[in-house]
């Protein structure tokens, strides 16, 4: 039954008037009348927020202050040097103008775009033949000071609107050719390996203005369509990996007669856009909400082509002051306020592009421990399930050992090994091979597992409990349906739980405050045990039909698009597991590791093979900035050893042999590793 069914049923009893007579006699309104409501699209109008008059105010005060000097980076733009358009750069406060190109008057430069490290500029050079009639445009790149200009496209057709991938290896652009509608293409940044990213089909009149998202996963572009009731202009955001995999954000621009100049904010949440939706102006699109709002407009200013400061706090755009026929550049705060003109620029300044601040070099990873030793192995209780370290304590989950779903969470002092608290819980990690399913975060211990179902049929529901670590009491219990929770993590402020559902695995997104389900993602697999979140993605490894010895697969979920993609693991692997180290996802291959690279088309990185055999399928693996901690077994399946794998070198070092117990789970603390054993014991390994 549909939600709110009773209330809709009540509505259904509301008597509707008979309008037929009015319909027959009614003269329909002119649908082409501009103010006619028929031209209004439901989605957009509600969100248009016009900040009227700002354009005039800007000119009044323009040029008096020197804003955004601290915003970093220079601003590249195109302007006229007297005979043709050249590329220039200038500091955000308007100082230090430099001309970067010196083209002949048979050429025109436009559309500069910075490489992500701020070291090079891609731009378009449009050339004319002797008659000045026909033209072709190609993409060039040059260093930030204008040196080393290099042509990267060479026709056929023209190439426009370059936008770099965040890793700097590729450029998305608009390709225009005689036999094809305009489409978005992607090439390597040296011009090699071009391929069509969009396919402009029968109702499509052309794609243009690509903008690569800061996280590298998506490309936004403008599409023009031309059939019947379809709104002609739209902003589309497609995943880079598989452009045909829907769903994707699609924002219609009803009433627009043009749209161009898409530019992502550095945090990837909104796109600036140059269109005339509700009068010419600078608009931004909230990508997730699929809504659009006006930042600034003004009949005289006619703002266009914009770019964000690296910190996302400012935006630069070109506009034309009242009484002038020449555009110049303006810098404003991201909300459109505090608008200032950059004075002293050459005429017709356009296409501003704000230079990214070079990314800071990663801090050196903490040094690996110089020595390690077993402090003690002590009994914690029967049927132990998982261990985690946090809030200065070691947390161990044990069952009631009587077949029921509940158990106890033990809070253990890492120094004295005393049990500080014994918390009876309805939910403990249920996975019999141990590990995972517990996360300590911000004063809470989160645990997922199963909770007794409401009936007596023995069917459980997947559930999450939150224990308040200040009181050592269960503060919340969320019943998530399905059957058994396997692991949990946090992303975008929400709780994400990997669980065994009615029909295979699922990942559910829930509100961390209320447990309210926000979304469910089906994962076509019989099992999966570990869920990691990184770079705005969720990654899990799954197995197929054969639960014993499988060709594991990796599953990636993009919460922004809802796209669930599957990537095969390169070698036959017993239960591959994802693990995070130094911000990267690695996958265990047993024996060995491979890196799950961002935007990986499969696994391009070679696997690192190790001679050490892992001790167990899943509870053996923990990652931090020092590397990946894992337990190995001797070939005869005995003598577990604690090892540290260094992702930078591919080497694994044995740290200490564990002479007692059969490890099932592991927790890593700054100065210790805690290993939980099937025998119901906990081994304390000190790191020196």
């Amino acid at each position, binding site marked *: 039954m549909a*939600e709110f069914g009773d209330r809709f049923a009540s509505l259904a009893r*509301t008597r509707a008037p008979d309008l037929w007579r009015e319909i027959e006699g009614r003269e*329909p309104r002119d649908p082409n009348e501009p103010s006619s409501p028929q031209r209004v699209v439901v989605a957009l109008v509600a969100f248009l927020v016009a900040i009227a008059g700002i354009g005039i105010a800007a000119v009044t005060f323009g040029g008096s202050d020197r804003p955004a000097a601290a915003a970093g980076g220079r601003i590249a733009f195109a302007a006229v040097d007297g005979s043709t358009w050249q590329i220039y750069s200038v500091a955000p406060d308007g100082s230090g103008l430099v001309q970067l190109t010196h083209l002949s008057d048979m050429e025109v430069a436009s559309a500069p775009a910075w490489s992500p490290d701020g070291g090079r500029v891609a731009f378009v050079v449009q050339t004319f033949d002797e008659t000045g009639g026909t033209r072709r445009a190609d993409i060039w790149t040059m260093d930030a000071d204008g040196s080393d200009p290099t042509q990267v496209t060479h026709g056929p057709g023209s190439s426009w609107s370059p936008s770099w991938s965040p890793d700097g290896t590729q450029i998305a652009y608009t390709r225009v050719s005689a036999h094809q509608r305009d489409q978005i293409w992607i090439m390597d940044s040296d011009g090699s390996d071009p391929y069509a990213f969009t396919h402009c089909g029968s109702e499509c009149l052309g794609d243009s203005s690509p903008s690569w998202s800061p996280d590298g996963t998506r490309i936004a572009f403008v599409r023009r369509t031309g059939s019947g009731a379809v709104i002609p202009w739209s902003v589309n955001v497609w995943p880079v990996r598989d452009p045909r995999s829907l769903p994707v954000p699609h924002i219609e621009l009803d009433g627009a007669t043009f749209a161009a100049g898409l530019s992502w904010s550095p945090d990837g949440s909104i796109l600036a856009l140059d269109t005339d939706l509700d009068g010419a102006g600078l608009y931004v699109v909230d990508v997730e909400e699929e809504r659009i709002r006006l930042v600034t407009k003004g009949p005289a200013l006619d703002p266009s082509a914009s770019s964000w400061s690296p910190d996302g706090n400012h935006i630069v755009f070109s506009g034309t002051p009242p009484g002038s026929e020449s555009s110049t550049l303006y810098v404003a705060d991201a909300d459109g306020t505090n608008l200032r003109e950059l004075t002293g620029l050459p005429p017709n300044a356009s296409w501003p592009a704000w230079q990214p601040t070079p990314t800071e070099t990663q801090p050196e990873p903490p040094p690996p421990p110089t020595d390690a030793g077993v402090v003690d192995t002590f009994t914690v209780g029967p049927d132990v399930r998982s261990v985690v370290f946090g809030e200065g304590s070691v947390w161990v989950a044990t069952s009631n050992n009587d077949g029921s779903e509940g158990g106890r969470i033990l809070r253990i002092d890492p120094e004295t090994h005393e049990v500080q608290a014994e918390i009876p819980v309805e939910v403990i990690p249920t996975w019999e091979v141990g590990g995972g399913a517990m996360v300590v975060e911000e004063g809470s211990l989160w645990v997922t597992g199963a909770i007794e179902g409401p009936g007596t049929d023995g069917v459980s529901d997947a559930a999450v409990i939150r224990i308040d670590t200040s009181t050592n009491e269960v503060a919340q219990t969320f019943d998530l349906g399905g059957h058994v929770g396997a692991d949990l993590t946090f992303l975008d402020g929400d709780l994400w739980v990997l669980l065994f559902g009615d029909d295979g695995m699922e990942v559910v997104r829930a509100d961390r405050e209320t447990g309210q389900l926000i979304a469910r993602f089906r994962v076509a697999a019989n099992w999966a045990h570990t869920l990691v979140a990184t770079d705005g993605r969720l990654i899990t490894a799954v197995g197929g039909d054969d639960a014993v010895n499988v060709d594991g697969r990796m599953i990636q979920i993009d919460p922004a698009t809802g796209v669930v993609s599957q990537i095969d693991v390169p070698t036959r692997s017993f239960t591959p597991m994802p693990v995070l180290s130094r911000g990267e996802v690695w996958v265990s291959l047993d024996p060995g590791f491979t890196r799950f690279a961002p935007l990986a088309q499969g696994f391009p990185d070679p696997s690192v093979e190790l001679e050490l055999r892992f001790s167990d399928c899943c509870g053996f693996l923990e990652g931090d900035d020092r590397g990946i901690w894992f337990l190995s077994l001797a070939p005869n399946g005995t003598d577990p050893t604690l090892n540290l794998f260094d992702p930078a070198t591919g080497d694994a070092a044995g740290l200490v042999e564990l002479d007692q117990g059969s490890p099932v789970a592991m927790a890593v603390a700054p100065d210790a590793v805690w290993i939980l054993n099937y025998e119901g014991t906990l081994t304390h390994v000190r790191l020196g």
Partner: protein
Amino acid sequence: VFTFPSVLLPVKVRVERAPAGVSRSDEIERLYRERGDRIWRALLAFAGDPEVASDAVAEAFAQVLRRGDEVRDPERWVWRAAFRIAAGELKERRRSGVAVNPGSYEMEEPARDLVLALGALSERQRVSVVLHDGAGYPSKEVARIIGSTEAAVRVHLMRGRRRLRELLRDDADG
């Protein structure tokens, strides 16, 4: 009663089923007789105002009547046009400061609460909830009617329902 079919009949099937000799205007009138009340109630739920609903429904049907065979799928066209017309009218009213509310139109209390709560949703959330939860259209069909994607509709539905739940719970508590 306000129970919509779970799926719209594809237009080809519907046209083929039309008896020989039935003119387009007869077909439109039959569409109005069969669906008009439902569309009107959905528009009432969407717009929160019986006047806006009546105007939008009448205008949408009047337009499809005049367009004749130009419209391939009259039912979907009427749904979409009526929502657009209502959205336009709501925008005009906001601009001119005219209040939108169910007024004294006769309806049961739960229905009135629902309509008032729906008014607090964004327009796209509202149209998604009304078409999906009220009219029973699957999200794919909702996407077709309102010219959006199925994924976007699901997001609007999810957020809209969450908001609606909060509002109606507060209402029940209060």
